[in-house]
């Protein structure tokens, strides 16, 4: 029997039972559309997060005090490093030709108040270099001074969100604000940018490193951010940092270095896995659709016993009967799959339009995966009824018993 004849025969059979066919199509459409939408969600999240990491700036290394046993793991949470990271370490690292600049970081939380408004805010102690390293933009005033890194001026730069919360749209450069128990002069306000991973700069206040050390009474740095000259310099810069610190810390390189690109790929992998996982969960709903297909096909086989007997009497071999019924199942699953694909792909831009903050992005593989699982569903769940039909004894089938 020719393929086009099998297909035409199947279409006629399916259209003879429109309600049943529509029900199965609906189940398939919902399953496939949810595969598409959920994987688009996962992929959107992945692109969002890795994009945020990239926006932190390029070819960065994060130097953390203390050493981890396993490479690439998290820095130690408990236990203190024998040597603190210091501003001097930060300056020493910057001497390398492989390193463009470094920025020391001290982090803490303090109450920031202006007039009657008060809030606990992340306080970042750093240097002028932070602006370049994190590619920050200043909307008003200027960033932290770059004259003397050891000077503990009581000056601060406000994140854009924090500024808006405390002052609204007022230009407050030159005014005073209270951080902890000290009064700071506002010298600049950051320009807005998308939320970033890790520290939300827009909701933080930046002050000079020594001032932060005094404010939190903590001489150690939280970390040093190193910006390499270029991407190629990263591995050698890493080695050089270890060497420099070993010399400075009495023979032990008691630090952990995290590469930004390693962080990106870690998150990238996590979110890729997540996307697969949500896709797979959605695909499980296909099993439900598959069972529905099997069920309906089983009923069809018993209802069409005499037809199967007739086909055999007319000379259809077993595999031919099998093909006819398999093609019906396949047609159901495939047309449901294609409709679901169209529906899913159409809803992605619609969701993006309705929720503009977060962009769903359909990964190309999910389109193929959705179609492949649709076909597999039809083949797997259609084969049992098809086999049942093919194995019917023609004499009993013709008698309709």
């Amino acid at each position: 029997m020719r393929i086009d004849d099998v297909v035409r025969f199947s279409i006629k059979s399916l259209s003879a039972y429109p309600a049943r066919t529509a029900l199965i199509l609906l189940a398939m459409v919902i399953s496939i559309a949810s595969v598409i939408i959920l994987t688009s969600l996962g992929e959107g999240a992945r692109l969002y997060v890795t994009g945020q990491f990239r926006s932190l700036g390029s070819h960065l290394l994060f130097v953390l005090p203390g050493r981890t046993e396993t490479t690439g793991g998290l820095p130690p949470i408990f236990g203190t490093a024998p040597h603190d990271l210091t501003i001097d370490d930060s300056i020493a690292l910057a001497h390398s030709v492989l390193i463009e600049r470094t920025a020391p970081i001290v982090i803490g939380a303090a109450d920031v108040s202006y007039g009657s408004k008060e809030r606990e805010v992340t306080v970042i102690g750093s240097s002028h270099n932070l602006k370049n390293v994190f590619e920050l933009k200043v909307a008003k005033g200027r960033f932290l001074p770059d004259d003397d890194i050891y000077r503990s001026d009581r000056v601060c730069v406000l994140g854009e969100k924090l500024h808006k919360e405390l002052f609204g749209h007022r230009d407050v450069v030159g005014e005073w604000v209270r951080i902890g128990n000290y009064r700071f002069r506002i010298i600049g306000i950051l320009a807005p940018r998308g939320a970033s991973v890790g520290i939300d700069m827009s909701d933080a206040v930046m002050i000079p490193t020594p001032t932060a050390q005094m404010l939190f009474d903590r001489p150690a740095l939280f970390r040093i951010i190193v910006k390499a000259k270029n991407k190629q310099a990263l591995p050698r810069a890493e080695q050089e940092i270890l060497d420099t610190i070993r010399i400075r810390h009495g023979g032990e390189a008691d630090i952990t270095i995290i590469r930004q690109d390693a962080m990106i790929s870690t998150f990238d992998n996590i979110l890729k896995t997540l996307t697969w996982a949500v896709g797979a969960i959605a695909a499980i709903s296909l099993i439900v659709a598959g069972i529905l297909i099997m069920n309906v096909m089983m009923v069809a086989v018993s209802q069409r016993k005499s037809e199967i007997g007739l086909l055999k009497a007319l000379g259809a071999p077993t595999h031919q009967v099998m093909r006819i019924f398999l093609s019906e199942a396949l047609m159901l699953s495939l047309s449901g799959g294609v409709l679901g694909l169209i529906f899913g792909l159409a809803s992605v831009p619609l969701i993006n339009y309705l929720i503009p903050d977060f962009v769903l992005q359909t990964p190309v593989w999910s389109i193929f995966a959705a179609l492949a699982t649709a076909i597999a569903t039809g083949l797997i769940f259609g084969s049992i009824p098809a086999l049942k039909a093919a194995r019917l004894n023609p004499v009993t089938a013709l008698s309709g018993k």
Partner: protein
Amino acid sequence: MISLHDICREFQVGDERVRALDHLSIQIDRGEYMSIMGASGSGKSTLLNILGLLDMPSSGSYRFEEKELTRLDEEECAAFRREKIGFIFQSFHLIPRLSAYGNLELPLMLKGIPPHERREMIVKALGDLGLSNRANHLPKELSGGQQQRVAIARAMILKPPLLLADEPTGNLDTHSGREMIEILESLGEQGVTLLIVTHDPQLGRRARRQILMRDGQIIGDTRSVLA
């Protein structure tokens, strides 16, 4: 053309073995017109099913054109049915969702004949049986006689040499029944070997050779009387 030798067909029903055909032997020549009569349960349908390879004997030999058929596999049986046999059933067995045209298309599709070649064959087959203006009718829109004519057209569209009809007039009134037999007889005149199972002695007696069955055996054969 056909030689059945010592054919038995047994069915297991519960703990009992029912012998539907009991050491049955018969020779059938090409172009013969034969009726098979006998009480219900005497094994007429079983005989026809075995002749059409819808069923296999439990023992014995079936030779068709000198070829032993009892050892064919499923695929070869299907090919034999496609090439050599036309079946007519009491209940017509038309596919309800297909038009007369669509039903006639089935054997041609199963044989893999391309659509443009089918058209001519179907139009001719419908015309031969006076159904030209019924091509697009569904079975339920046709009378019993017309439905059985569609079934005959379908059985004969590939011109098989052997036509097996199991009580073809059983669901028809006397007038349509007679008409049906006349159509079958005209096919016989064109050289088709006709085997018709019937309950109606009047129709049965029209055949040149008449067979009477009881308990899975042939108890009367007009040819052996003449011979």
